């Protein structure tokens, strides 16, 4: 009797245990593993982490709504602290973690290095934040990009100048004397190259062009040259330190052009405005990824995004990078949910199905992969510092304020 009972208990126990293990195992296999490759430590950690937070929010939302093809999405992070480590981490994610795809990367140099690895292993690589042309211009069939690229920077800058700023100033665009200054890495040089092309198409008058190393400690000779050439409109493509240095030195030397238009994070971040002084940066223009002072009719969901961000991370977003990563990540994961399976070729082919018009995502961008798998509906926003806040002023349907010119 006792024996029989014992036997029963043991059998039952093993059954329960086996089911439990089996259950665990099925669950572990069933999760959809996605690599998240960002610089999470080192010099680029601040915006790298900001970008990663956007992807995390996208994954949270997808999982709340039933995951991808019924399975929970799990993010496996890789820390792309430099180019070598980006390659190493991409290899680890692919061979050890066996991720279905890699999302990243914020930094163009890291993206270019790591996406090469993904292409060789035929694992889809989705770039949500790096802007250099070369990310998509290398004929890599598994590399997609949802965010706007360097050419979009230049295009928006020149269009905003021609369509909005010049009319507001009451001067014909061709009569404005334009000076281009930029830091001399791949980023600054490629934006400047496109600025020249678009400016020439519009018949604008570029009177000066100079580049400098981003680590420069003195820009007074550039300010003197701009003054000497009587430049009306300064286009600067820069990181944070050189943005601060230029705006300070221009102000201190009493140089007041009709407009300063910056490109990128150096001009968008509040710490820059704090360093330069809000009265000095007032009126300065900036073209960048979508920020948060934008018309919600053009960017439906942006307010909900900020609420979700604050709830999850306990602070307001530090830049628009999280928003751009969120929108890109969410669109791709939603599309994967519709796909038949998660093999690399299916994922790759499914991407042609994405067709989201401009003005319908939380960042205002549309998504449709075109030539070289670059999102041809990616757009930048034109913004202006007004009373201590960076507000969207261009294009008009996205704007929340009118352009202010200081004559």
């Amino acid at each position: 009797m006792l024996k029989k009972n014992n036997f029963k208990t043991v059998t039952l126990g093993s059954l329960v245990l086996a089911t439990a293990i089996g259950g665990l195992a099925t669950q572990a296999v069933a999760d959809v593993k996605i690599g998240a490759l960002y610089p999470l430590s080192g010099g680029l950690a601040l915006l790298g982490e900001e970008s990663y937070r956007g992807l995390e929010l996208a994954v949270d939302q997808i999982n709340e709504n039933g995951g991808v093809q019924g399975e929970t999405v799990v993010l496996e992070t890789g820390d792309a602290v430099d180019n070598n480590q980006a390659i190493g981490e991409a290899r680890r994610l692919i061979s050890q973690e066996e991720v279905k795809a890699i999302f990243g990367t914020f930094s163009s140099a890291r993206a270019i290095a790591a996406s090469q690895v993904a292409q060789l292993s035929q694992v889809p690589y989705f770039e949500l934040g790096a802007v250099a042309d070369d990310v998509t211009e290398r004929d890599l069939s598994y590399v997609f990009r949802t965010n706007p690229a360097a050419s979009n920077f230049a295009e928006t800058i020149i269009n905003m100048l021609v369509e909005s700023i010049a009319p507001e100033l009451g001067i014909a665009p061709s009569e404005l004397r334009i000076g281009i200054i930029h830091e001399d890495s791949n980023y600054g040089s490629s934006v400047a190259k496109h600025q020249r092309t678009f400016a020439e198409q519009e018949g604008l008058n570029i009177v000066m062009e100079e580049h400098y190393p981003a680590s420069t400690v003195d820009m007074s000779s550039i300010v003197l040259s701009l003054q000497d050439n009587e430049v009306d409109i300064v286009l600067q493509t820069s990181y944070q330190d050189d943005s601060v240095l230029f705006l300070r030195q221009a102000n201190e030397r009493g140089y007041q052009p009709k407009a300063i238009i910056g490109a990128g994070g150096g001009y968008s971040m509040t710490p820059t405005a704090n360093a330069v002084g809000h009265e000095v940066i007032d009126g300065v223009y900036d073209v960048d990824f979508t920020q948060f002072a934008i018309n919600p009719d053009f960017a439906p969901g942006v307010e909900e995004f900020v609420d979700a961000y604050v709830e999850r991370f306990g602070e307001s977003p530090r830049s628009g990078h999280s928003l751009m990563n969120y929108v890109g990540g969410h669109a791709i994961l939603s599309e994967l949910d519709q796909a038949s399976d998660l093999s690399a070729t299916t994922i790759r082919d499914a991407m042609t199905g994405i067709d989201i018009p401009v003005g319908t995502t939380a960042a205002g961008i549309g998504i449709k992969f075109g030539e070289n798998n670059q999102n041809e509906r990616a757009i930048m926003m034109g913004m202006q510092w007004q009373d201590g806040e960076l507000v969207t002023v261009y294009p008009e349907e996205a704007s929340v304020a009118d352009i202010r010119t200081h004559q």
Partner: protein
Amino acid sequence: MDLLFSLVINGLMLGSLYAMVSVGLTLIFGITKVINFAHGEFMMIGMMLTYIITTYLGIHPYLTLVFVVPLLFLLGIVVQKYLIEPLKDSDEHIQIFATVGLSIAMINLVLMLAGSNNFNTPSSGLRETLGLGAATVLTGQVVIMLCSIFMVGGLHLFLTKTQMGRAIRATAQNRNAAQLMGINVSRINMVTFGIGIACVGIAAVLLSPLYPVNAQTGQSFVLIAFVIVVMGGLGSIAGAFYAALIIGLVDAFAGFYLGSSLKDVAVFGIFLLVLIFRPSGLFGNARKLAHVS
């Protein structure tokens, strides 16, 4: 004419800033024979300290000199005693690697603690512009100019007129002979390293109201500081001062007439010419160079 005047003033202001950063480096180089690749990072630490003390105590940035300079002096002594001194009998390359390693460690320590954010020391009126004829300068720049002259003069007096100064110079001339004369060479090395780092501490305090600081700030200044030290003659303090002014002027003029993209070509071109025609530097002499190598 106005333009020329502006360029000269800009060049001198930039030059005296470089001079402040370079003086400590040339002192350490000349006396202890250590090439201190972490020099810029000591400056970055000094700027961080200035920022922290200024914001927490709410005092004028210049008042932080009383904290920052002694702290950096001590830091210098500790580094010399526990990092450089134990390596004194090993190959020179090992010492170089040690300071490079120290530099990387310091940058990453700050990245770990403070992230890659920029910190702005309040300008406290030091960014006010002064009209100097056609040129404009900041009050903080004028202070840097004056202090660099005092610093160079003060160090010169210290090295020539005091007992400690003479002991330091004796050590520089011949370590073994100095030791035989009863000079405690390792103590001299410690004090010299401390003074060199304290000098860059002064530079850090004066620079802080004018430049934001982040973990990488030291890197922006240190390469040009090495050029200045070599150009002025290894270990020559007056040489470093004049070389810094020359580099500042070349930077300003080349930046305007050749463009910012080519100004480094001019700076390093002149540096190469000096190396070819006066390998011991503008103000160094062959004896010193032979001694260093």
